[in-house]
């Protein structure tokens, strides 16, 4: 298949999700999807579109015996060595959920603290509030010192060290907003760089940042597609 023709890519993703792509063609497509994040996202889009058809079916309750049988099968599968015993990296979305939960707690704490401050006595410097953050990548000496001025929408990044696993990938910086990750931009891997901050970040009581590994040029979907390598809060510096 011509891997760049968007209409053909979408057509194959659609027939894969519908199930009419079969046999060797289906297996070829499955292999392709493993290394092509944008194609994978297209399959997911189609799966979601088509699942809307199933949502229109009235619910049907299965017989009670199904649950009992299921419990037996799960108990039986537990006799084997536990699949949860070996430590493995937390899956991507759970990392995000964890970060978001942590950010929510910080926000809550700050919110309660602010409430005890009498109205009108808010710090006058809020307009120019500066934040700093230090992001370090595990298994390497790569790190960034970030300084942020949310009111001006500016972020300055100074890169140090090296990330040997980088290859042709890009490292993308995200703001973990209450609604989920919001892209800020690609981090420089050497030297310095300036990135623009999303406007909504200025009104956020607490700032959490994260870095993910992405295809060259950054996530094609606007949401993280690769592993989250690190995350850290930005601290008020002035």
């Amino acid at each position, binding site marked *: 298949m011509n891997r760049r023709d968007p209409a053909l890519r979408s057509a194959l993703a659609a027939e894969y999700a519908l*199930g009419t792509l079969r046999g060797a063609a289906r297996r070829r497509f499955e292999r392709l999807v493993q290394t092509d994040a944008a194609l994978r996202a297209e399959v997911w889009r189609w*799966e979601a579109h088509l699942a*809307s058809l199933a949502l*229109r079916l009235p619910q049907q309750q299965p017989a009670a015996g*199904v649950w009992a049988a299921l419990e037996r099968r799960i108990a039986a599968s537990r006799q084997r060595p536990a699949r949860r015993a070996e430590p493995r990296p937390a899956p991507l979305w759970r990392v*995000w959920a964890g970060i978001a939960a942590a950010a929510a707690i910080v926000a809550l704490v700050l919110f309660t603290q602010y409430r005890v401050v009498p109205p009108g006595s808010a710090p006058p410097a809020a307009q120019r509030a500066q934040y700093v953050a230090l992001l370090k990548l595990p298994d390497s000496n790569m790190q960034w010192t970030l300084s942020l001025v949310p009111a001006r929408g500016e972020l300055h990044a100074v890169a140090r060290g090296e990330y040997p696993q980088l290859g042709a990938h890009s490292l993308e910086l995200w703001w973990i907003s209450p609604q989920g990750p919001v892209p800020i931009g690609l981090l420089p891997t050497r030297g310095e760089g300036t990135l623009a901050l999303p406007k909504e970040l200025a009104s956020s009581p607490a700032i959490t940042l994260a870095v993910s590994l992405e295809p060259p040029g950054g996530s094609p*979907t606007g949401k993280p597609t690769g592993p989250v390598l690190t995350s850290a809060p930005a601290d008020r510096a002035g």
Partner: protein
Amino acid sequence: MNPTAAEPQRLMMLLAAVGRGDERAFAELYRISAGHLYALLLRILQRSDWAEEALQDCFLKIWQKAETYEPSRGAPLTWLLTVARYRALDLLRMKRPETELPDDDGAAALEATAAGDDPQEGAAAAQSSERLAECMRRLSTEQRRSVLLAYFRGYSHPELARALQAPLGTVKSWVRRGLARLRECLEAQTA
């Protein structure tokens, strides 16, 4: 409060807990979502014994793989339904030789499903479901039937050709064009 309401936030939390091995969360997830999955499995497999077997397989997989769900795959219930549908297709391929197609013209009933019945979920899903139904209505009758039979019966191209009594090439183009029009319509509406 509707006890069977499959709200995305709730389901997402339950999936996260199931990923950590939380059995109570798993029971709750089953209670909330099994009715949706079973309805789809029954529709595709047409036999309650097969549908029950498939439902067990799905939830066993969900128990083992809950952590592979990520929100970019769509709403949690959407993902669960996708897991169920792929399982049903696999079962069909194993259990239904191509010569043993159910001898029904289910297409008309399926169209009623796609056009009628209110979606059984929250507002966001209702919206996307409504949008899809609107776009399905804009397909030609043949295109719509082909897509619905492939989705709800798991028919392959040759099976569709037999069910719709049309040449294979014609059926393939109904499916292909139907999906392309569906995409154009869905994208025009979201733009």
